[in-house]
């Protein structure tokens, strides 16, 4: 080695360091040793792309926090929220043809039906409580109206028991209960209408289950980062966690006021969600400016709610509502 020129010898040391984390041979060479020590430290040099990206994300988050706490802002990307008692800002709205889903939820999760009423011309509207969360169901009464299945993460006390009840209630297994590496024991169910239920029990004190409510929407997209960016601009969502591996985001989480939303990279399952705000007209305009498509301009509904209706870039429908 000593016969080689210094640039070549140093390069061999760096090759060994990068490949095996080993520069021990160089430490016996007095000319190379100090450079090898420095090279070992440089293996921990942070990517400046990474530090700049993280800085931009934090900056965006702090800007959102500022605009949300100071009310409707000049920058626009904000919303004031007006939540119905017992609800959170975001509530899943599951469209199905008949009351079978409500029965499934009662049998599987011991859901409690808190409200039922007619939507003139559109069928039956039901509200059910699962644990500390609410789910809304629209029953069209017509088989030809397509269901809009969603994916929901549900925390329960004993996933094995609940999973067995889901199977008995007609659910199909997408994955038997098992201890998962992300801190929960989880089993996956598809109901008769195509909805996915990620049923979980927390494992250990650090599980996500201690940070989430009983039911959390799990939204799929092929561009999770872009989708969260849309929700930030449209509804003032704040990104909380993004896990990225090799350019793919297997898991992310954001929050719209008091409601968490989880994300994964997968084919979208366009569903529908209620979003409670103070001023549906301005949030509706904000969503359109962020790239949403209008399905119906805000109007006062027979229920007393004022509701605007949009479709986001992934195909999810949002009822932007001010409660009666």
């Amino acid at each position, binding site marked *: 080695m000593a016969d080689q020129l210094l*640039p070549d010898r*140093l390069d061999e040391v*760096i090759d060994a360091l990068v490949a095996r984390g080993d520069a021990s041979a160089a430490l016996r060479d007095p000319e190379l040793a100090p450079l090898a020590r420095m090279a070992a430290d440089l293996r921990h040099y942070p990517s400046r792309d*990474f530090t700049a990206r993280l800085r931009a994300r934090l900056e965006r988050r702090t800007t959102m926090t500022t605009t949300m706490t100071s009310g409707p802002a000049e920058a626009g990307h904000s919303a004031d929220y007006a939540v119905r008692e017992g609800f959170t800002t975001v509530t899943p709205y599951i469209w199905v043809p008949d009351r079978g889903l409500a029965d499934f939820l009662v049998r599987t999760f011991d859901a409690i039906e808190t409200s039922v009423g007619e939507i003139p011309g559109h069928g039956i509207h039901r509200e059910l409580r699962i644990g500390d969360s609410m789910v809304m169901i629209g029953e069209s009464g017509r088989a030809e109206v397509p269901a809009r299945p969603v994916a929901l993460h549900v925390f329960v006390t004993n996933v094995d028991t609940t999973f067995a009840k889901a199977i008995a209630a007609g659910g199909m297994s997408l994955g038997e209960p098992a201890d998962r590496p992300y801190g929960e024991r989880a089993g996956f169910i598809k109901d008769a209408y195509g909805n996915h239920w990620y049923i979980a029990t927390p494992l250990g004190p650090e599980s996500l289950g201690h940070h989430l409510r009983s039911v959390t929407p799990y939204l799929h997209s092929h561009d999770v980062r872009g989708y969260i960016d849309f929700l930030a601009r449209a509804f003032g969502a704040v990104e909380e966690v993004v*896990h990225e591996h090799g350019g793919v985001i297997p898991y992310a989480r954001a929050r719209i006021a008091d409601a968490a939303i989880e994300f994964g990279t997968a084919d979208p399952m366009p569903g529908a969600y209620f979003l409670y705000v103070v001023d549906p007209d301005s949030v509706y305009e904000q969503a359109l400016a962020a790239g949403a498509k209008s399905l119906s301009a805000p109007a006062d509904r027979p229920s007393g709610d004022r509701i605007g209706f949009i479709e986001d870039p992934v195909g999810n429908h949002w009822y932007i509502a001010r409660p009666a």
Partner: protein
Amino acid sequence: MDVSTDEERLLIEAAQADPARFVELYDRNVDRVYAYVSRRAGSRSVAEDVTSEVFEQALSNLGTFKWRGVPFVAWLYRIASNALADHWKRERRDSHDLPPDVPDEREHQDLERRVSLFQLVDRLPDAQRQVIQMRFVEDRTIREVAAALDRSEGAVKQLQLRALENLRKDAGHHG
């Protein structure tokens, strides 16, 4: 610490009142947190995930931070230690059940030395900095770096040597 205690306390109070100031705390501490996490993380992607988690949590919980005269980075190291433990639990690395230690005085000095080195890299001439970035961050071979920079492999090896010699010289001046 490169800021006085009073300056740091005022900056924390400013960020607690106006979250937009949090990025100043980030700028001052990101290299320290990354250096601490990186030597325990085992891979660059884990180090980046955990570092992100630390600052996301710090921003969420900044309102709960109480100034007691201890450097802000000590609080960040504590969050990092717990975030690493969480990561290991998720990865089922049972041998690391307990959170790793926060730095003692000796490690603190070592981390500060590394942070100074990282900042010296940022100030290298462009070509030398690019070689360091590609070799150590992107794990590229000399041949790949030569192709990317449109230089001969010999020229890139010379740049690499010059970069390390400059860093050694500057670190001597700063250390």
